[in-house]
């Protein structure tokens, strides 16, 4: 069975679809996503509701999708039969990514994904050090990570991404180097490396907030270490927190996450599922994070409760700047003049943090220097008019 059997083409313009699968075996302390623990009995109803929501929004979708991304939660924790039913019912797309936690990736699951058209799997590794995994309350062991990646490789998946966290309480620089080494040894096509954030209101922040603050200085250079190590190993630092194997080392393949690139390039996207966000033609909405009201509404064939956010052109322009500057490609300034403080740009150039480029008759564009990218947040705040 191949993906796309159940998907009727739409007639809109949106070419990127996000599907939220909230179920997890356990809620990790640092997580602030919309997640639900267990609820095996509700997986089926939830998939029904997802498909009903997709049906309601189908008109927005383009006849051919470029990307689909199944995120969570732990999409691979969803019961196998329901996951298979969902994948079968989704429209076809050129890139289909599924997020997976290592401990859920069995050979059977790998096969299921492969057979249902999944082209890319993003594995939530976070760390290979048991003491750090314990701090994060992750269930997977380092061995499970290896097993998961091998299982995916065995079924022929050739686009695997690993998620790593750095700045974990108690993580030494040597720990970080070993984590990076262990990840590189698995030769992933893609790596996402995030600094652990103590997000307000999480259990994690409650427990470790003070410790993180104390460590901040010692861990100041971890970001640089990550970038140095990965670029040194032949990876392209194409987005603030994302790396992929260079095309010349990958037989010309562009291994950037196409789905996420769509976000960073300011494309429209449709998100379905609880807590999912859509941005379509100048409107953004977030679907209710409440499972009950979501299931109830879609059970009656009605749209679930949504929080609407108008996106006037001025805001969209600002977002184009803040998203675009995360990438390693220049951001064209055409149409963004009002969102950019040109005086600030001048100052940033002077400081060697940004560069203006103009090639021939092409539009003027701006790119951050390497140091500018390390300070991307501050630089962007400075640059926004």
């Amino acid at each position: 069975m191949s993906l796309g059997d159940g998907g009727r083409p739409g007639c809109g313009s949106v070419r990127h679809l996000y599907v939220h699968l909230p179920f997890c075996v356990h809620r990790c302390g640092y997580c602030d996503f919309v997640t639900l623990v267990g609820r095996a009995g509700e997986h089926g109803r939830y998939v029904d509701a997802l498909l009903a929501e997709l049906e309601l929004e189908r008109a927005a979708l383009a006849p051919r999708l470029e990307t689909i991304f199944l995120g969570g939660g732990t999409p691979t924790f969803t019961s196998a039969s329901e996951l298979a039913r969902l994948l079968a019912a989704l429209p076809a797309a050129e890139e289909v990514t599924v997020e997976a936690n290592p401990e859920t990736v069995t050979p059977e699951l790998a096969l299921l994904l492969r057979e249902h058209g999944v082209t890319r799997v993003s594995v939530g590794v976070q760390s290979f050090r048991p003491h750090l995994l314990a701090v994060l309350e992750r269930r997977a062991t380092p061995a499970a990570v290896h097993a998961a990646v091998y299982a995916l490789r065995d079924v022929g998946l050739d686009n695997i991404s690993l998620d790593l966290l750095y700045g974990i309480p108690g993580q030494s620089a040597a720990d970080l180097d070993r984590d990076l080494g262990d990840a590189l040894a698995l030769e992933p096509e893609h790596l996402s490396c995030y600094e652990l954030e103590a997000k307000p209101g999480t259990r994690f922040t409650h427990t470790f907030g003070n410790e993180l603050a104390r460590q901040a200085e010692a861990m100041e250079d971890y970001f640089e270490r990550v970038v140095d190590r990965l670029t040194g190993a032949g990876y392209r630092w194409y987005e603030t927190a994302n790396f992929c194997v260079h095309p010349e080392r990958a037989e010309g393949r562009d291994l950037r996450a196409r789905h996420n690139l769509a976000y960073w390039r300011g494309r429209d996207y449709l998100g379905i599922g609880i807590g999912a966000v859509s941005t379509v033609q100048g409107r953004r909405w977030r679907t209710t994070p409440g499972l009950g009201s979501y299931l109830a509404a879609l059970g009656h064939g009605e749209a679930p409760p949504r929080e609407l956010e108008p996106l006037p052109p001025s805001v969209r322009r600002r977002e184009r700047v803040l998203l675009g500057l995360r990438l390693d490609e220049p951001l064209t300034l055409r149409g963004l003049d009002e969102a950019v403080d040109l005086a600030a740009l001048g100052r940033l150039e002077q400081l060697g943090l940004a560069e203006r480029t103009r090639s021939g008759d092409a539009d003027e564009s701006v790119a951050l220097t390497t140091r500018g990218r390390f300070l991307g947040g501050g630089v962007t705040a400075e640059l926004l008019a």
Partner: protein
Amino acid sequence: MDQQRIRNFSIIAHIDHGKSTLADRILELTDAVSSREMREQVLDTMELERERGITIKAQAVRVHWKGHELNLIDTPGHVDFTYEVSRSLQACEGALLVVDAAQGIEAQTLANAYLAIENDLEIVPVVNKIDLPQADPKGTAAELADLVGESSDRVLRISAKTGEGVADVLDAVVERVPAAGGAADAPARALVFDSSYDQYRGVVAFVRVVDGSFRHRERLRAMAAGTRFEAEELGFFSPTMRPTESLGTGEVGYVITGLKDVSRLRVGDTLTSEGRPAEAPLPGYKDVKPMVFSGLYPTDSDDYPELRDALEKLKLNDAALFYEPETSQALGFGFRCGFLGLLHMEIVRERLEREFDLDLLVTAPNVAYRVVTPTGETIEVHSPADMPAEFERIEEPYIRASIIVPKEYVGSVMELCNERRGRYGSLEYLSESRVHLTYELPLAEVVLDFYDQLKSRTRGYASFDYDLAGFREADLARVDILVGGEAVDALSLVVHRASAYERGRALVERLRDEIPRQMFDVAIQAAIGSRVIARETVKARRKDVLAKCYGGDITRKRKLLEKQKAGKKRMKQVGMVEVPQEAFLAVLNLGQEPRR
């Protein structure tokens, strides 16, 4: 009243030594008020008058005692108003010198007593609070007798609280204080010893008629200021306002002028009659000049108009207060204000904060400097930022400090004075255990934190007073504080060359701790001219990114960046460097909090 039966006197006393209690007792004993009324009238007058819109406070009260008219003239109670005190004393022929039997003489009492002696006043020494268990009437009387050069048994011993001995005080005033002098038939002259502003009646002058007399509705002239006005009302306080038709030679009272600005009728000026003007004013008028300056800025720049209005209002009643608009790149719009001294500054600041509910940022106080430029011109500089880079020489104001301490602290006080470039004057034992020290000190060293230091090094036992001793040449330098290569105007200081390094170092270190890390290294320097004397660096941030940003949280990330942007806007920009207002605040407060 017959001039021979008029006695004009003041009470000189250190704070809490019983001046107001004694004044109250005198009013009571002379039947000016019953003791019940006393409370209601005297204490509540302010409140009542305020209700009626009148804010004139009695500066002189007239009472009668055994066929004599006694005028009790109030003196401002503190050091910065030495000149005002001297004018009040000039209006008198005598003074009660009141000293707490348990505390002994304090520096401030001493200063005012000397002032009274200089003005040829008859001093009536009084030891108060003899009812206190820890009182030492005998020892205190001996100290006092020594000070005024009288025998100990001429020192009155009283308790203003119980009333014991107060009648003797009044008798002594009648007997010992000379009758009011002055020539009744000469052209009228009156000394303005205080003034006050009332929003309905304008400037009210408190006067002592020296020669001749003044009549209601007479055209008058202030001889120094040249101001002309009509005496809208004449009168005296007893203890409330009592209008009269005239004020005669030797009498004390008030003149309502209708003038709208106290600066047009300054303390020390001489009033005369337009009809028959005096040839010369009374001696001793001085145009008092502010000696201590500081920048006052509203913490919230929106409060600037309120600050301006408040200063305008205070100025109505305080001719010595000086202010002019000042702009600082670091602190925004504010005022450079001039004060008679530290205490005056504190009073103004407190009134602005309390009565006008303003939140203020006060720059480190500095003194007035006289700078001789290379072209030989002398200019007065009120702000370190205005100090020219090149000059022939600088003169700074010196004070004569008078310090009284228990003898065991003499060493620490001398040490402090030497640290502050003091020049030793004299050392004198007031009694076996108490020593009176005098030093000449640069006022600039005193405005820093001298008083706090003095208190802490003597466990609070020292009492301190000063008066100005003129300008002296000094080896001073202007130290600029540079942030990222740009001088921060509000932080410049003028210091003695010997302490430039130390002061510069302290400021630079403090700023380093207060300035958040930026996207580039920020040099913080202290410099004299182009010579850097201290330097610190705030290292550049190495990372500043929002870790994750995907479809679900673009809005949140945008808001975070917008918040970061708004935070930047609240910062003060010094060149490329963003400095939080709090950083300036912390640095400006670096040991500069004068409290008395």
